[in-house]
């Protein structure tokens, strides 16, 4: 077997997919800089940036102090001078400490300068619950940023999407908030080969993970896999054939894929793990109402996290997060409406 063929079929996990793209883009773009806490000497808390400091040196892989606001501000300055910047948040929860620089400075820069100052910044970090991380290591706070015009918001759910969307994000001239799903980092079951070459998954294109005719499940991140499991159960137990859509990017949003699916199935459940009130699921419901209300045979329902912080110990954490059961029951309600 040739080397190339071997490479093409080697399965990698979600984390390695990300790491490889960072290495490749750093090689391809000599002006690219990575900044963040513990990304250099340590190689990142989760190891996403492992090996980069040795390869590209401490100047391009900068270990910053614990200063999220300064990290984002610095990323803005670097990007202004024409560099591509990857800024890591050790956990996406800590992005709140850099919030002002993101929503007031980075998000509005292009607008304020009449498009003269693009900011090719990717702020990425591990996100999501189900791991017993408690209130500050489990958040899925994408709605804060989807609500701030000028930012793109990306959440990959598979290794090849992680790779393709990260490359697309790094090459995008706008600031991107890139949510990595930490429970997927090393998940064996989802390992897959990454398409060769400079593999890109364009921002703004959803993926249909399971074709179906009776009901549409719309999700992203961790709950996507719960939706796929619920879909199998619906098929097995009730003969309900659910379609499962992975949004992949929230901004820009692939409305077309959503609306086409709704037109086909006429029934929808939206699932995500952020709190319900003002979460992105609410946005999806509103869009469906605005565009294809007449196609609906049932109200669009949501399965989300409860409106609570993410509690720590397992019985509490699972109580507030979406589960296969909660999704299944909601689908039955919608299907039998």
């Amino acid at each position, binding site marked *: 077997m040739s080397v190339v063929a071997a490479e093409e079929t080697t399965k990698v996990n979600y984390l390695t997919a990300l790491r490889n793209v960072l290495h490749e883009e750093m090689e391809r773009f000599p002006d690219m800089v990575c900044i963040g*806490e*513990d990304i*250099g*000497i*340590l*190689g990142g*808390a989760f190891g996403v940036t492992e090996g980069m400091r040795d390869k590209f040196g401490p100047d391009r892989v900068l*270990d*910053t*102090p*614990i*200063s*999220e*606001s*300064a990290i984002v501000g610095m990323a803005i300055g670097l990007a202004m001078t024409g560099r591509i910047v990857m800024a890591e948040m*050790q*956990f996406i*929860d*800590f992005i*709140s*400490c850099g919030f002002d620089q993101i929503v007031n400075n980075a998000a509005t820069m292009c607008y304020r300068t009449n498009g003269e100052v693009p900011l090719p910044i990717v702020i990425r970090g591990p996100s999501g619950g189900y791991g*017993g*991380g*408690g*209130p*500050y*290591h489990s958040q899925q706070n994408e709605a804060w940023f989807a609500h701030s015009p000028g930012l793109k918001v990306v959440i990959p759910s598979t290794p090849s999407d992680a790779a393709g969307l990260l490359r697309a994000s790094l090459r995008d001239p706008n600031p991107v908030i890139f949510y990595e799903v930490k429970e997927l980092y090393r998940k064996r079951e989802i390992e897959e080969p990454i398409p060769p070459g400079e593999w890109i998954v364009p921002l703004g294109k959803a993926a249909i993970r399971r074709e179906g005719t009776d009901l549409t499940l719309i999700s992203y991140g961790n709950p996507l896999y719960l939706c796929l499991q619920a879909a199998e159960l619906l098929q097995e137990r009730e003969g309900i054939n659910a379609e499962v859509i992975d949004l992949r990017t929230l901004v820009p949003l692939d409305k077309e894929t959503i609306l086409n699916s709704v037109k086909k199935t006429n029934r929808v459940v939206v699932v995500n793990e952020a709190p319900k009130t003002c979460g992105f699921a609410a946005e999806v419901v509103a869009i469906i109402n605005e565009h294809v209300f007449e196609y609906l045979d049932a109200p669009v329902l949501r399965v989300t996290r*409860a*409106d*609570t*912080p993410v*509690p*720590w*110990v*397992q*019985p*509490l*954490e*699972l*109580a*507030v997060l979406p589960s296969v059961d909660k999704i299944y029951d909601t689908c039955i309600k919608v299907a039998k409406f």
Partner: protein
Amino acid sequence: MNQKSTVIPSEEEVKTEEDKERKAKPILPRNSLTREDHLEILRQIYLARYFDVRLIKEKRRGRLRGTLYSSQNQEAILVGTLYGLRSDDWISPVHRDMPAFFLKDMRSGWDNPERKGMSIAQVCAQVWGKATAPGRAKDNWSHIGSVPLGIIPSTSMLASTIPVACGVAYDFKLRNHDGVVLTYNGEGSTARGDFHEGLNLAAIHDLAVIVVVENNQWAYGTPVELECPTEDVADRARGYNIPGLVADGQDVLDVYDKTMWCVERARKGLGPSIIECKTYRAFGHGDHDDQRADRYRSKEEIERGRRRDPIAVYKTYLVENGILSEEEAKRYSPEGKHAIQVTDEDFPPEVVEAVRKGVEFAIASPLPEPEEAFKHVFVEE
């Protein structure tokens, strides 16, 4: 003001005859400690060490959830800063300070129900994530607190308790109350905006906020030189025109002296200060990082950092000053031993017993019911 002002006047500070005398025969806060005080301080250091050792062992057996941020080698900082506080003073421990929750106000009696500190059992329940924990296990490990006990609950966001401490201390000021608020921070967290914003505010209003910086040389995988530009982290005090003291974090009495100096000053309304306690992080950042930490830190460095075990340093003092005999000092000797090598015999029985009771309480306590997850998002009427 001389920014390196310490309990013992420096050369530049010696101006009058009185200063000279003070320099020759410094009146150190430690001088008023009794033999009983010393024995109690030693017992508390043992307790902090034993608690940590017990958790390390429990974690290794897979009985605990969450990350264990060992406080080993840093016990002198916790005991030295807490021992001289009053019951009505406030503290805010963070991730590496688990023992502080029960060490607070221990002088009022370990088992005294009126004591303004958590019980060992409560802290164990928190670590085990049980319904009997102060926060009912909604948040993990060090993220607990109690207003009646004067403990600010922290978040994960480093240095975020300093502005909160300003609020508590401002309340003290409005009430003419001479309490102090002592906050703990790693040196890494001194880079956060909240650290600067909080101290700036505290200094402007002479708030009784004492910022203890546990400089253990590493913030996760980043060394102190990449976290702080000044020679000592305490030098950051200059920017706020407040004293920045450097203490030997391995020497409980040095920490005690300097804390009491800052506390007295704060009680008089003279404002905040920083005490940087030099120490070394014995293990990885958390137990998940133990193996990686042995790679990003050299063997020699680790050995050097662990060499001055605070228990050994204190015992030397106690023997030299006739407070303990050589024999008595040797009786319990966990110092210098790795957490997994020490046994219960290395600790005084009352220490082992106190932790054992706490652990048993935690293990016997139930997990919280799932409904608990939905309670108290708002105040319940």
